[in-house]
C-alpha cells in the first residue's frame, strides 16, 4: 500500500510546478486575461493564450502525456495527467490544455484506429488541437477553446461524433472565467466516434477535478498568507478562530478533493471497474470544494478580496466554471447515489 506518487511522478510534479511558476506569474496571468479582446471591450473576458509556452509544452510532451507512444505521446497514464492538471490549476495558466486533453482522452479510449491515426499525433504535439462538447443534442452550450481547435468531439451519453472545426458553427461566449475561452458549438454531420466514450468522460471529469484541486490549493495558500500578514486590532487576523477555523476547513476540503482525485486517477490506470464511481466522487467533491474554498478565501481577504485588482477573483471564477464543466456536482452525486445502492431500477422493481 503506497498512497503517494513514485519518484518519477514527484519529479514530473516538481518540474511542472517550477516551469509554470516562471511562465505564469500572477502578473502574466492578468496580462493574458486582459489582453484577449482587441476590440476595446472591457478587458478580462476572453483571455489570450500564450502560444509560445504552448509550443514549449508540446515539445516537452505535456499534451500527449497519456497518449500512446505509437501516436506521438509519452505513453504514461491518468495519474501523470492529473499531476499536470493540478499544477496548471495552481498556476491558473491561460492555455488550451484541458480542452485538448479532453479530445485526446476521447480518441485514445474510444476512437477508431483511423480516427486515432488521424487526430492523436496533432493533439499530442499540440499543433492540431481538439476539444470536447457534451450534450444538448449535438449543440453543446459550453465548449472550451472551440475557437482555436481543429477538431471538435460532440458527446451524448454513450456515443459521439467527430467534427472538423471548419465544418462547425462556433459562437464565442463571454463567461465569468477570464482565463479560459468558451464557445457555443453547432455542427451537423461529422463521423461517428468508434466506441463508447464513457471511460474517457470519466477521465476528463477526473482531470477537471485535479485542476480544481490546484485552484483550491492556491486560494487556500493566499488566504493563509493573508491571515498571517494582515493585522487588525493589534494582531494578525489569523489568530482569531473564526479566521483560523475557516482556513482549517479550507485545508480539509482541499485534501478531501485531492485524495478522491488521486484515487480516481489511480483507478483509471489500475482498477478501471471502480473508475465510474471514483471519478464521480472526485468531480462532485472537488466541484463543491473548489467553490467553497475560494469563497471562504475571499471572505478571509475581506474587502480587498472583492477587488478586480486582487488576483483571487480569477481563481474564484475558474472554480465556479470548472464546477460545471463535464458534469456538475449535482449530476455526479446523482450517479454516486445510483452506484452506491439507491438504485432507481430495483426500487421500481420491488415496489
Amino acid at each position, binding site marked *: *500500500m503506497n498512497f*503517494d506518487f513514485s519518484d518519477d511522478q514527484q519529479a514530473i510534479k516538481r518540474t511542472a510546478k517550477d516551469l509554470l511558476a516562471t511562465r505564469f506569474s500572477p502578473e502574466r496571468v492578468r496580462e493574458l486575461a486582459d489582453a484577449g479582446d482587441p476590440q476595446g471591450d472591457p478587458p478580462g473576458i476572453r483571455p489570450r493564450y500564450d502560444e509560445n509556452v504552448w509550443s514549449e509544452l508540446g515539445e516537452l510532451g505535456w499534451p500527449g502525456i497519456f497518449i500512446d507512444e505509437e501516436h506521438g505521446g509519452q505513453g504514461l497514464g491518468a495519474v501523470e495527467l492529473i499531476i499536470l492538471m493540478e499544477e496548471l490549476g495552481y498556476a491558473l495558466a491561460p492555455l488550451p490544455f484541458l480542452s485538448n486533453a479532453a479530445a485526446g482522452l476521447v480518441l485514445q479510449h474510444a476512437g477508431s484506429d483511423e480516427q486515432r491515426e488521424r487526430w492523436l499525433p496533432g493533439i499530442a504535439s499540440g499543433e492540431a488541437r481538439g476539444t470536447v462538447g457534451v450534450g444538448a443534442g449535438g449543440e453543446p452550450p459550453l465548449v472550451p477553446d472551440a475557437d482555436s481547435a481543429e477538431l471538435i468531439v460532440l458527446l451524448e451519453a454513450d456515443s459521439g461524433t467527430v467534427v472538423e472545426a471548419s465544418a462547425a458553427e462556433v459562437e464565442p461566449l463571454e463567461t465569468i472565467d477570464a482565463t479560459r475561452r468558451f464557445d457555443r458549438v453547432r455542427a451537423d454531420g461529422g463521423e461517428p466516434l468508434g466506441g463508447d466514450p464513457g471511460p474517457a468522460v470519466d477521465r476528463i471529469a477526473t482531470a477537471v477535478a485535479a485542476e480544481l484541486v490546484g485552484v483550491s490549493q492556491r486560494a487556500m495558500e493566499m488566504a493563509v498568507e493573508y491571515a498571517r500578514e494582515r493585522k487588525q486590532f493589534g494582531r494578525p487576523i489569523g489568530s482569531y478562530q473564526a479566521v*483560523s477555523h475557516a482556513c*482549517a476547513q479550507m485545508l480539509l476540503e482541499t485534501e478531501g478533493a485531492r485524495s478522491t482525485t488521486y484515487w480516481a486517477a489511480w483507478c483509471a490506470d489500475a482498477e478501471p471497474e471502480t473508475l465510474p464511481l471514483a471519478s464521480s*466522487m472526485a468531480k462532485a467533491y472537488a466541484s463543491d470544494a473548489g467553490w467553497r474554498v475560494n469563497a471562504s478565501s475571499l471572505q478571509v481577504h475581506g474587502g480587498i478580496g472583492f477587488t478586480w485588482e486582487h488576483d483571487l477573483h480569477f481563481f474564484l471564477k475558474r472554480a465556479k466554471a470548472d464546477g460545471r464543466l463535464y458534469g456538475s456536482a449535482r449530476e455526479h452525486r446523482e450517479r454516486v*447515489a445510483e452506484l452506491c445502492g439507491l438504485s432507481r431500477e430495483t426500487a421500481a422493481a420491488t415496489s
Partner: protein
Amino acid sequence: MRRPVDLTLSPSEQAFRDELRAWLEENHPGEEPKGENEAFEFRRTWQRRLHEAGYAGLSWPKEYGGRGATLVEQAIFGEELARAKAPPAANLLGLVMGGPVVIAHGTEEQKQRYLEPILSAEEIWCQGFSEPDSGSDLASLKTRAVRSNGEWVVTGQKVWTTLAHEAKWCMLVARTDQDAPKHQGLTYFLMDMEQDAVQVRPLRQITGEAEFNELFMEEARIPDENVLGGVGNGWPVAITTLMHERAGIGASSAISVKIALGQLVELAKERGVVDDPLVRQRFAQLEIEAEALRLNAWRGLTQVMKTGVPGPEGSLPKLQWAAVNQGLTELAMEIRGDEALLRDSEWTYRFLRARANSIEGGTTEVLKNIVAERVLGLPKLR
C-alpha cells in the same frame, strides 16, 4: 502489477488480511447480550480469544506480548473488525493507550508488571484526565497529588471516565507542583481503583445510559513506583496517550460509516424514498465524504510510514468522521419522519449518541486549532 501510487495491499499485507478475515469468520462471538454487566463479560471473553490468537495489542512490540504490527496492518485490523461487526475488546483503553504509554515511558519493572494483564483483560484500565473545569484545556487540571510518608496522596475529581467501575488501574494525571507553570507541574500515575478513597459515580448521558463516570478521590494513595515517566513529566506522557487515542480513528471508522450507509440504503428502500432527490443528493454526499475520510486516512498512513511524521491529511480523519456520522444519523432521522422521535430504536439512539462525536477524543474546534497552528502555521491567540 504494483504501480506507483498503489492502493493495493502488498502480498504480506494481503496475507495478513486474509488470515484475519478467516479467523474472524470462525471465531466471531455473535451478538452482544443486553445488560451492561453481561455485555462487559462478553467483551472480556472476546478479548481473551483475541489474545490467544495473537490479535490483542497488535501494535505492541513482540517482546511485550504484541505482534509489532505495521501501521498498515493495524489499519487492516481496524477495518476487518469493523467489517465483521465484531464487538470491541473489553480492555480497549488498556490496549490502545495504557499499554503503549507504559511501553513508551515505563521502567522495565512496570512493563513486566502491567502489560500482560492488559492483554488478557485480567486488569481493566480507565483514563483519569478530564475534570469538570478542565476539558479542552487539560493542562489546567486541579486534582492534586501530595507526597506524604513515602507515598502520594491524591484528592480531586475526574469526569468522562470510561470503564471506571470495571477498572483496576486508572491512568491518572494530577498536579504535583502548584508553583510550576501549568504544563510542567503535572505527574502521570497508575492509580489502584480498588480503594475506598476512590468513588465512582455513573454519568448519565443524553441517550439515557451511562457509558462514562465521575471519579471522586479523597486522599487516595499511590505508591512511588506507580509514577510513570518521572515526577513532573505528566504532560508529555499524557500527550502520548492522547496521540494514540486519536490515531486509532481513521481507516476503521471509515468502514463503520460505510456499513451504516448500507443500512441507510435499506432504510430508504423500506420507506420508499429512493427516488427523493434530496435524499439521493444527501446520501451521495455522505458516501463521498466517507470515501474521502478513508482515503485521507490511507494517505496519512503512507506519509507516516515514509517520513515518521504525519502529513496534513493525517489530522483530518477524526474531524471528518464526526461530521459524516452526524450527517448520516440526521438523514436517517429525516427519512423516518415522526417515528424517529420514539425512544426505543437503534437509529434514534445513534442520532443522539453522535452528538458526542464532535467532542470526545478532541473537540472539532480544538482539532481545527491544531490544523490551523501546526499544519497551516497560523499564529496562536493564546
